[in-house]
């Protein structure tokens, strides 16, 4: 509990660890698996719930930065324990252009696998993961639940990965 409020849950997946695969509803009738995105960089943004003001701002921000994420070769995915219909309404209201996955049944199973489930209120932490094309976590960060972590950490991680791959090529 105290660790979580300091922004560092004990089991938060760390760089170098394998990102657990999952299959979750992206819409009421479509599923998305992490393994389908193998070969691409994936940003996973866990957030506590649709509609709460801070989440709205955070997802709205990522929505605006989406072209830069794409330029850096990354796909953005939002996840919360809300159901697919709730996500659909939220995404439509905020005009979001990236998928929101419903970690709804069994509730929070993916959040648990990534070490960011919040037992005390049945939601997930506000946690970010950058996963490389081989399915390894390259960067992770957990923000206090009430604080929008912004995008600078993600952008920094993506740029470091791109610089790294350039070095490896040359």
């Amino acid at each position: 509990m105290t660790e979580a409020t300091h922004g560092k849950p004990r089991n938060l997946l760390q760089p170098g660890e394998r990102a657990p695969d999952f299959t979750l509803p992206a819409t009421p009738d479509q599923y998305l698996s992490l393994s389908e995105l193998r070969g691409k960089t994936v940003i996973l943004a866990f957030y506590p719930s649709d509609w709460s003001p801070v989440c709205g701002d955070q997802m709205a921000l990522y929505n605006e930065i989406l072209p830069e994420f794409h330029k850096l070769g990354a796909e953005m995915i939002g996840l919360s324990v809300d159901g697919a219909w709730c996500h659909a309404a939220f995404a439509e209201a905020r005009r979001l252009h990236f998928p929101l996955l419903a970690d709804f049944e069994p509730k929070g199973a993916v959040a648990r696998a990534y070490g960011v489930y919040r037992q005390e209120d049945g939601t997930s932490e506000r946690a970010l993961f950058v996963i490389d094309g081989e399915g390894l976590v390259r960067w992770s960060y957990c923000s206090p639940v009430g604080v929008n972590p912004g995008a600078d950490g993600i952008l920094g991680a993506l740029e470091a990965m791109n610089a790294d791959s350039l070095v490896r090529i040359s």
Partner: protein
Amino acid sequence: MNMTQLSALRPPVSFVDHTMGSADAPITLVEYGDFQCPYCYRAHPVVTRLQKKFGSRLRFVFRNFPLSELHPHAAHAAEAAESVGAHAGEAAYWKMHHAIFEHQQDSDDALDDEHLVRYAADAGADSAQVRSDLASGIHRARVRSDFLSGARSGVNGTPTFFINGARFEGDWTSPSEFASALDDAAKVAV
């Protein structure tokens, strides 16, 4: 990637920015704002009062951070202001800046292109030029560059303020808290 890096202004204020006040001022206040954001509307008179209070000790800088998907007129409002600045100068830019915020809540269409062009003409710009700039999107890259600098500097919503390059983590709706943060920055700067 530690926390201290997360809240520093990148890039620092330079000649490309819209600034009000002297470059020698001990306090530089940067706002990342969205012309259609209701919180920025509320922040606008707060900033004006701080400018009055601190006078020549304060330099104010505005950078664009439009959340266009939430605020459909925000991008064009920013581009119209840039157009005014580019063609009619900094004084006209600031007139336009004030006009946009002052009119933001007039009506639902207060920031549509027709209104923006009218505010631009009142600020001293050529309305045909502004109209043509909005159509061509020539200032879009500048606005985007402001936006991305904000994203890199840890801006996570609007308005976000930086005082002498460090993100202001306090409550901008509290005049005393905001003013004392500026005072503290001035003491460090001297």
